């Protein structure tokens, strides 16, 4: 049977139409029977950010151990004494190391040598995400720079890319397990094991997640909850009525290495 020009166009047009409609039908069907839902109490935002009030955050008396311990206990972060193998989600740096571009020779007395609490900055323009070859780290819609530990191949490009040293590599097995995968009662690096949260394994990079799993339960990040001085505030920068926006409007704030253009989302109130 010969197909003339007119017939060819008719068939081509009709099959295109059917093809397009078929896709629509499939998409609608897939959406209507979605089995995956967000949690009910979940805290949501367009841009999560944190403020650290350096006037209230007084590490001198050792209270920084409370928020660091709260974080590390919640997320099973191993306490490894060997500095080469150290894993940290929150830690402190002296003021001049945390803010190398604001290292004035003469400065406010309280700021000189002050131990500043530092975490992952959850940058708006995260360099770690750009270099990750497996998309094991990415920026969520709410601004959190997340990690998928299942996908991390341990290449450590992200560690090299991060200008804040916020990422740690598991050089050694962070949690002791028996042969059949049971977690052992005597742990070399974990003081307490939170069984609701996984540990990591050797060869994986880890860092602060802004407590993404706690936000899904409607809870504030563990460090914010643990801070008795009220030095940490966590909220949505896109919400003009949020506590964090009020703080930033009222107080002068600095960020770590702003000249690099990473747009860090941890603001230090001075």
């Amino acid at each position, binding site marked *: 049977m010969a197909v003339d020009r007119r017939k060819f166009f008719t068939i081509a047009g009709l099959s295109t139409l059917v093809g397009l409609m078929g896709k629509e039908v499939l998409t609608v069907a897939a959406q209507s029977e979605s089995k995956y839902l967000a949690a009910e109490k979940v805290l949501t935002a367009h841009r999560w950010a944190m403020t650290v009030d350096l006037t209230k955050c007084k590490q001198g008396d050792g209270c920084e151990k409370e928020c660091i311990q709260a974080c590390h206990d919640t997320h099973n972060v191993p306490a490894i004494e060997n500095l080469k193998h150290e894993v940290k989600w929150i830690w402190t740096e002296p003021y001049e190391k945390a803010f190398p571009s604001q290292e004035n020779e003469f400065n406010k007395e309280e700021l000189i040598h002050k131990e500043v609490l530092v975490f992952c900055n959850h940058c708006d323009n995260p360099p770690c995400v750009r270099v990750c070859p497996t998309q094991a780290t990415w920026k969520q819609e709410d601004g959190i720079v997340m990690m998928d530990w*299942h996908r991390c191949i341990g290449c450590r490009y992200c560690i090299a890319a991060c200008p804040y040293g916020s990422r740690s590599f598991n050089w050694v097995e962070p949690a002791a397990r028996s042969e059949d995968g049971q977690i052992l009662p005597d742990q070399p690096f974990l003081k307490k094991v939170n069984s609701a949260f996984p540990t990591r394994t050797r060869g994986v990079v880890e860092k602060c997640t802004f407590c993404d799993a706690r936000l899904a339960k409607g809870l504030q990040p563990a460090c914010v909850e643990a801070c008795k001085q009220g030095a940490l505030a966590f909220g949505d920068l896109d919400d003009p009525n949020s506590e964090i926006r009020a703080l930033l409007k009222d107080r002068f704030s600095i960020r770590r290495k702003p000249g690099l253009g990473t747009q860090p989302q941890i603001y230090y109130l001075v």
Partner: protein
Amino acid sequence: MYDKEKIIPGIIVFLVLVTFPVWYNLAFGSGNGAPEPQIVSQNEKCVESKDYMRTQHMDLLNQWRDAVVRQGYRMYRTADGALVEMSLTNTCLQCHPNKTQFCDECHNYMAVKPYCWDCHIAPMEN
């Protein structure tokens, strides 16, 4: 047939030797019989049917993983409409606290080594 009295016993001895691993394993081997996982569950129903879970649990867990970690979903609507948290430790293993008799029984038989337990924490067993 020439040399019948040598060839036929020869063939029999050959067949016995060649099939030795098969029947020895059937008689004395440790791998005979299907694995018998102990299904202990705190709830009446699983998130999907038993048949589905038996054959597809690994796919379901992978889909849960991607939904939670990469898409930010936390809850799963089960076959009978209930909502459960998508979590290996907090949902699956809360209901089936006997990992060694439940998960490992079949995994060892099939010689598969899922790496779930490299990081996720199974409930303590005595």
